[in-house]
């Protein structure tokens, strides 16, 4: 049971999901841009002020970083567990806990990615009704890095959904096999 096809598929998917969510968390955490703008002019002397755009300014981005770190840590933990668990028989409780944890982490990844996506949409387009100005025309590099992190997080999210489905199907196949074994024994 150690080297079957679904084991290899699951390991490959988990490695990709780990890399995607870790990349998203790191790119967003290092997202920072400083710009000096001319705020006012007294006579002929322009007064400059430097404004910084950091990821901590928006709570949605902070949640995004934390959620992606948690999901990538979960994937790392599962990869280590899968590589070092080479016993010939698989216990049902292990499969069940892996399936449940995968489902919960998939929902966490979806929450983090979508909160940051709508926050970024607000920063890119502004909101006329609430008189909120857009900030992407002045902080273009900040917005570019943020959208790169978002794309990586959405790739990780889709991979987490596939991983959860594969874990659930492994659990169902194993429970069907044990059900056939008990009914053939009696």
């Amino acid at each position, binding site marked *: 049971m150690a080297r079957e096809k679904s084991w290899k598929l699951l390991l490959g998917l988990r490695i990709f999901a780990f890399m995607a969510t870790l990349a998203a968390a790191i790119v967003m955490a290092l997202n920072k841009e400083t710009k000096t703008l001319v705020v006012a002019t007294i006579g002929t002397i322009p007064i400059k002020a430097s404004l910084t755009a950091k990821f901590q300014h928006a709570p*949605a981005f902070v949640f995004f970083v934390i959620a992606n770190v948690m999901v990538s840590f979960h994937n790392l933990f599962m990869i280590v567990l899968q590589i070092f668990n080479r016993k010939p028989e698989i216990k049902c409780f292990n499969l069940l806990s892996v399936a449940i944890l995968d489902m919960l982490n998939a929902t966490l990844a979806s929450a983090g990615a979508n*909160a940051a996506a709508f926050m970024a949409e607000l920063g890119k387009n502004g909101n006329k009704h*609430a008189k909120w100005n857009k900030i992407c025309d002045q902080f273009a590099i900040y917005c570019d890095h943020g959208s790169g992190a978002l794309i990586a997080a959405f790739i990780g999210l889709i991979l987490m*959904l596939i991983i959860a489905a594969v874990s*659930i199907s492994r659990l169902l196949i194993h429970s069907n096999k044990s059900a056939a074994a*008990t009914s053939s024994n009696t």
Partner: protein
Amino acid sequence: MVKLTKRIGGLVLRLAAFGAALAALIVMVTSRERASFLALSLEARYTDMAAFKYFVIANAVVSVYSFLVLFLPEKSLLWKFIVVLDLVMTMLLTSSLSAALAVALIGKKGNANAGWLPICGQVPKFCDQVTGALIAGFVALVLYVLLLLYSLHSVVDPFLLQKS
């Protein structure tokens, strides 16, 4: 006898989740307030923010799905597929709730670094109704996580508990 109570429990849970999602949808759609501000009057509606529109659409999808699954007969083979569909619906609910929360937080507190002023001071009733819709959405989310674990349990049980 045990199977009947389990089935009724599952149906009650799904009915409650359907009710919560429908309530969130209705409260968000009917939130509207007109405020006069200096010389001009502005009207706050849920269509002003993209996140609230997504919240309404996601809760509508979840309500329709719950209503349809309520009528699924017990012996059909689709129950294994329902587990994955429940997972997809839970992800939809979490994403819509977190997006609406992120935008509502800016509306309530503003964002001093970006120069965005809070709007809850001018349209307090709109803010209150949006808060109510978000709470109903959160209740629907919690019920859906329980439903997910319950449908996994009902598909894999009873052979799982006897074998361990």
